[in-house]
C-alpha cells in the first residue's frame, strides 16, 4: 500500500507511458491493479458515450435574468422620476423667484404707474368715503405728505 501508484501515474500507464517498474507494480499489486482496471473502464465508458451524439439539450434560462430585468427597469424608472422631480423643482424655484421678484417690483411699479387708484380704493374702503377717485388720490397724497412732515 505504501508504494501504491497515484492516479496520475496510473493514467500515464494507461497512455502507454510510465516506467517498467511502475508497470511491474501494477501487475503485482492487487489494489493498484483494481484501480487501474477501474480507470480503464471509466475512460472507456466516457469515450463511448461521447462518441455518440449528445442527448437533446434545452437552453437553461440565464440565472437571475428576471431579477436583472427588474433592476434595469427600476433604474430606468428611478432615473425618469428623478429627472421629473429635478425639472419640477427647478421650474418651481424659477416660478417662486419670478413671483417674489414680481412682488418686490410691484409697489415700485405701482408707485410709478397706477398706484394711485388702487391705494385710493383701499383708503376709500377704510374711511368709507364715496368720493371720486381723483379726490381720494389728492387726499391720500396730502395725508402722506403730512405724515412724513410730522415725522
Amino acid at each position: 500500500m505504501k508504494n501504491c501508484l497515484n492516479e496520475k501515474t496510473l493514467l500515464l500507464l494507461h497512455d502507454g507511458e510510465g516506467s517498467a517498474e511502475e508497470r511491474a507494480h501494477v501487475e503485482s499489486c492487487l489494489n493498484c491493479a483494481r484501480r487501474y482496471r477501474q480507470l480503464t473502464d471509466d475512460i472507456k465508458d466516457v469515450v463511448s458515450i461521447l462518441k455518440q451524439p449528445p442527448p437533446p439539450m434545452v437552453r437553461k434560462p440565464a440565472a437571475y435574468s428576471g431579477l436583472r430585468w427588474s433592476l434595469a427597469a427600476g433604474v430606468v424608472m428611478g432615473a425618469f422620476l428623478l429627472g421629473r422631480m429635478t425639472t419640477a423643482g427647478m421650474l418651481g424655484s424659477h416660478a417662486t423667484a419670478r413671483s417674489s421678484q414680481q412682488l418686490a417690483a410691484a409697489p415700485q411699479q405701482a408707485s410709478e404707474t397706477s398706484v394711485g387708484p388702487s391705494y385710493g380704493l383701499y383708503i376709500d374702503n377704510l374711511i368709507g368715503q364715496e368720493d371720486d377717485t381723483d379726490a381720494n388720490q389728492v387726499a391720500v397724497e396730502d395725508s402722506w405728505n403730512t405724515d412724513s412732515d410730522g415725522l
Partner: protein
Amino acid sequence: MDHERIYRAHKTRILNLCRLLLRDSDEAEDVAQEVFLRAFERLSSQDPPTVWEAWLVRVAVNACRDRQRSAWWKSRRKPGDLDELAPWLSSSSEEEARSREWQSNVWQQLRSLNSKQRNVFVLRYIEGWSTSEVAETLSLTTAAVKTHLFRAVRHLRKAVER
C-alpha cells in the same frame, strides 16, 4: 458534385467534433458550416488536400479554438450558463434510465470543463491523437497536455462513478 460528396461523407463527424469542443450546439453547427465553406473554397483552389478527413478535422479544431478565444464567445458563455438535458418523457426501464443518466452526466461534466481540458481530452481520447500532436496543435507543452488530461479524466470519471 465533389462538394456534396465531401459534405455527406464528413458532416456527422465534423459536427460531432464541434459539439464536443464547443459547449453550445448552435455554435457547433455554425462552426461546422464554416469548416465546410472553407473546404469548398479549398476544393476550387489549385491545391486541394489529398486526405480530406484529416484536413477537415484540423480546420474544425482550429475554428473551434478561434471561437473559444473570441471575446464575444467568452462573454456569451459563462460557466454556469450551460444547456441542460431535456426531460426524458417516455417511460423507460431502470437500466435505460441509468444509461440515460450516465449519458447526461458525462455530457454535463464535459461541458463544465475549461476549454483546454476539454480540447485535450477530446483530441487525445476521442480523436486518438498522440500527446505530442495535441501539444503542437494546441500550442502547449507535452507536460501541460498530460496535466490537463489528468484533470479532465478526474472530472469526467465522476459522471460514471458506480
